[in-house]
């Protein structure tokens, strides 16, 4: 151990007595393409296997190899799985970013680093653990070409020793990660052990951070939202999938392909009960989905903002010709190409009205991987029930990061295919017209090619209740009014908000999607650190349900918390709310590409509430009505 490290040890003698158990954020800084993902996932899973709630967030570049990437693992005994703003424990493997990474740490943080980087000279208020990775990897990995990939597993071993993670569980996590790749497992086990042994022989624990067994996370699964949505699609009975690769949605369709190949191939014939097509672009993807849905299939696509923009014209066709379509929008940072590998909730407003003319769409918004799974199924039901596109508004944080969750429940209902015309219905209603509102809910009955029922000509041009071409003013108005009526009906069928009304709370939070995790944590922070109590309304769908107005009425001020610059949900709400209600709305906005965190919300709300905020926020997080900075 170097003299500097001893000095640090002295300086933080008092801190050593304080132990921080199962409550810290650990960041691994590497370059992408270096195989660090395996090491990071093994670390993540081993903490989960210890029974400790965890989350793993990858901040990666839009690049294949050689650029900086950061992976953050948060352990939280209280179950907070949103991003934590501060990094408590850094693993510095990337020479390019190491200096800045170390300089931005809060005092008291710990750093495991690649010894030649000599990071211990940078600060005296941190705990440093230098590890000679190259020296350690050589003996455990004789093949020099593989060393680059095995090297990272050494820090897992070091961390297991420093944090107190059971090595047996870490090896279990490793086996899970690498599966049947025997040689790779053996090599990585050697690296794990080398790290552990080195830490055991050379380090005295000086930082306060530790993992101890809990029961909280026992039996939980770890999954990315995209994979969760894919499982949901499979359980919903999807039959046609058309997609075009785009980050961060590609892994949704890729997961789906692998699940479908395993579970949706007929045992006897070896034939698929599905068709998945990689289309030429997102326009064609949605075109195929519309064609397939029109012909009776449960069809879907997944994309991100740029794809949504391209789908605009077809989205209008599906709305007006009334074809079901399920579209996953795994949102990333725009405008334009934007930050393709960073997260945002920036497509809400444009998607609500995607396409020209008077068009509006159903959107459902999952917050968790479990909701990705469930809402994927609801999306197909809603799309067929309402014969219209349904957008599932995910984001990169949810779609591509690893989330802890309870196992998913098997669907307890059959699927709802909506109003398909049958002989029985035809007998009851007498005369059928494709766009005739027979039940008064705005939803007509449809037929599909080959079903033997009456035929119709679907079109994006003006049509009457019978589906015939028409430019007559009264036909147009009647049809558009019925479509509006159908949208009103949908209010009663989309997922309800989740409301936590706190007695006596003067303020309320409205949030959606992945902001949920930071909001939940922020409410605890506010309650514990100040006397601010906040009710919470988690929006799960557009169109809004009646509860929205009630929630606003029950509070003096409403903070609408979003991960975009322009307060898109707030703007959408303004279109429907009375001026009195609108006047109560304020914004908490976060849009730097990183997932929103609780501290940023708390500080922003406190500032807008007139509190002195001691803690500085590293980035401007708000353009709220109180001018919070």
């Amino acid at each position, binding site marked *: 151990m170097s003299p500097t490290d001893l000095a640090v040890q002295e300086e933080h003698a008092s801190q050593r007595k304080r132990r921080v158990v199962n409550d810290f954020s650990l960041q691994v800084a590497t370059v992408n393409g270096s195989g660090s993902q395996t090491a990071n996932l093994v670390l993540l899973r081993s903490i989960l296997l210890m029974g400790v709630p965890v989350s793993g967030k990858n901040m990666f570049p839009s690049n294949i190899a050689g650029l900086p990437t950061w992976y953050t693992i948060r352990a939280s005994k209280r179950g907070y799985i949103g991003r934590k703003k501060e990094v408590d424990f850094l693993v510095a493997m990337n020479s390019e970013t190491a200096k800045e990474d170390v300089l931005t740490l809060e005092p008291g943080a710990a750093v495991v680093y690649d010894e030649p980087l000599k990071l211990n000279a940078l600060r005296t208020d941190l705990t440093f653990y230098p590890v000679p990775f190259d020296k350690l990897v050589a003996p455990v990995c004789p093949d020099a070409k593989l060393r680059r990939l095995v090297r990272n597993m050494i820090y897992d071993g070091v961390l297991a020793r420093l944090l107190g993670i059971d090595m047996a569980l870490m090896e279990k996590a490793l086996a899970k990660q690498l599966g049947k790749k025997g040689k790779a497992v053996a090599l990585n086990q050697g690296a794990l052990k080398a790290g552990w042994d080195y830490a055991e022989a050379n380090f005295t624990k000086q930082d306060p951070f530790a993992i101890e067994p809990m029961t909280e996370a026992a039996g939980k699964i770890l999954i990315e939202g995209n994979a969760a949505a894919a499982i949901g699609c499979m359980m919903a009975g999807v039959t046609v999938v058309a997609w075009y690769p785009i980050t961060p949605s590609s892994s949704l369709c890729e997961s789906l392909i692998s699940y479908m190949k395993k579970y*949706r191939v007929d045992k006897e014939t070896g034939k698929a009960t599905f068709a998945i097509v990689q*289309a030429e672009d997102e326009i064609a993807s949605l*075109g195929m989905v519309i064609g397939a849905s029109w012909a009776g299939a449960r069809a879907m696509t997944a994309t991100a903002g740029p794809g949504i923009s391209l789908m605009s014209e077809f989205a209008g066709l599906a709305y007006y010709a009334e074809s079901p379509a399920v579209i996953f929008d795994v949102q990333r940072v725009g405008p334009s190409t934007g930050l393709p590998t960073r997260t945002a909730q920036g497509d809400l407003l444009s998607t609500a009205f995607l396409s020209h003319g008077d068009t509006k769409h159903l959107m459902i918004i999952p917050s968790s991987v479990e909701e990705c799974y469930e809402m994927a199924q609801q999306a197909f039901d809603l799309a067929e029930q309402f014969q219209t596109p349904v957008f599932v508004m995910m984001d990169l944080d949810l779609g591509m990061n690893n989330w802890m969750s309870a196992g998913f429940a098997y669907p307890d209902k059959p699927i709802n295919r909506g109003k398909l015309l049958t002989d029985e219905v035809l007998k009851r209603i007498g005369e059928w017209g494709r766009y005739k509102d027979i039940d008064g809910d705005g939803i007509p009955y449809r037929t599909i*090619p080959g079903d033997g029922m009456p035929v119709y000509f679907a079109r994006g041009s003006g049509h009457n209740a019978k589906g015939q071409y028409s430019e007559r003013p009264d036909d147009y108005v009647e049809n558009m009014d019925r479509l509006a009526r159908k949208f009103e009906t949908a209010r009663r069928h989309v997922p309800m908000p989740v409301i936590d009304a706190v007695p006596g709370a003067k303020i309320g939070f409205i949030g959606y999607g992945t902001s949920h995790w930071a909001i939940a944590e922020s409410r605890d922070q506010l309650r514990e650190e100040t006397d601010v109590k906040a009710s919470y309304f988690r929006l799960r769908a557009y169109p809004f349900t009646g509860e929205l107005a009630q929630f606003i009425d029950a509070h003096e001020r409403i903070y609408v918390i979003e991960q975009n610059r322009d307060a898109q949900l707030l703007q959408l709400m303004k279109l429907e709310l009375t001026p009195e209600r609108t006047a109560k709305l304020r914004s908490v906005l976060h849009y730097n590409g990183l997932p929103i965190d609780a501290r940023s919300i708390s500080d922003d709300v406190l500032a807008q509430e007139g509190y002195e905020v001691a803690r500085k926020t590293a980035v401007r997080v708000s353009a709220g009505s109180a001018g919070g900075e």
Partner: protein
Amino acid sequence: MAGKVNRIGLESIVYKGGKTTLCAGCGHNAISERVIDAFFEMGVDPRHVIKLSGIGCSSKSPAYFLGGSHGFNAVHGRMPSVGTGAMLANGKLIAIGVSGDGDTGAIGIGQFVHLMRRNLPIIYIIEDNGCYGLTKGQFSPTADVGSKLKTGIVNDLPPIDTCALAVELGATFVARSFSGDKKQLLALLKAALAHRGTVMLDVLSPCVTFNDHEGSTKSYAYVKDHDDPVEEVSFVPFFEDISVDYEPGTTQEVTMHDGSKLYLKKLEEDYDPTDKIAALRRLHETARRGEFATGLIYIEPDRDDFLSLLNVVDEPLATLPLDRVRPGPEALEEIMESLR
């Protein structure tokens, strides 16, 4: 008075559509009539046919034939994707798509290209008049160099030869015809119905209002004078027990997917429509002379279509029962266990 019925017992009137709203004399109307004849004569059940189109004069025409079939008039240039989706949903359907030279060659060229590559079972007809009719006569990408608009503007960009493109890209049945050639067009349409895979049929179909004047290379007069058939096409469907006698060496016989037969009688030049390179050469040579090679340009009767490549079950995906599309609880449990 009961009319003649076809092999499935339907009268020809069943195959008619709504009254056309296109200009009197429009080539597209003649094509609609041939489609009606072909589907009637082949005894196709209209309830299993889907009609697809994009936007433009051509794309209106599916409303004027097969009134007993489902139809989808999609957005401009994007009919191929809608048709693809529909066929994925139900591979038992018979798809006929009608596009135009603008709808295909300009805004829709991307989807056209990929449709041809996939060999989706669909009859894709381009009603080709070299101009945009519905927006009053602008040039389209199939307009020939030197062709003149009514306003006197001369086209100086090279045309897209949709047949050459289709051959190059992998379509397995590529033909060109003329809306005024009843016999050839009907034979090709009937053969198209016997083919399993992508049929790309470019039909020169003069626009009487905007592109039928002196100086246009897509006028009735010009096309009639410059039509250069590569062979004489006769089609005998599988359900007709007719044997055609021909002198050896004069006629090429092609057996189609469903057992129907095509008899291609050689004209002055030898032509083998199963030879891809010969097909491309012939298209280029004819174009260089300022003429149109018509007839069956290229055929590959046995290649796997897109649905076979995807290895989908025989029944329509659209109507598979829930127990075949929702895996059981043990599958979900297995997945969950793999994630713990």
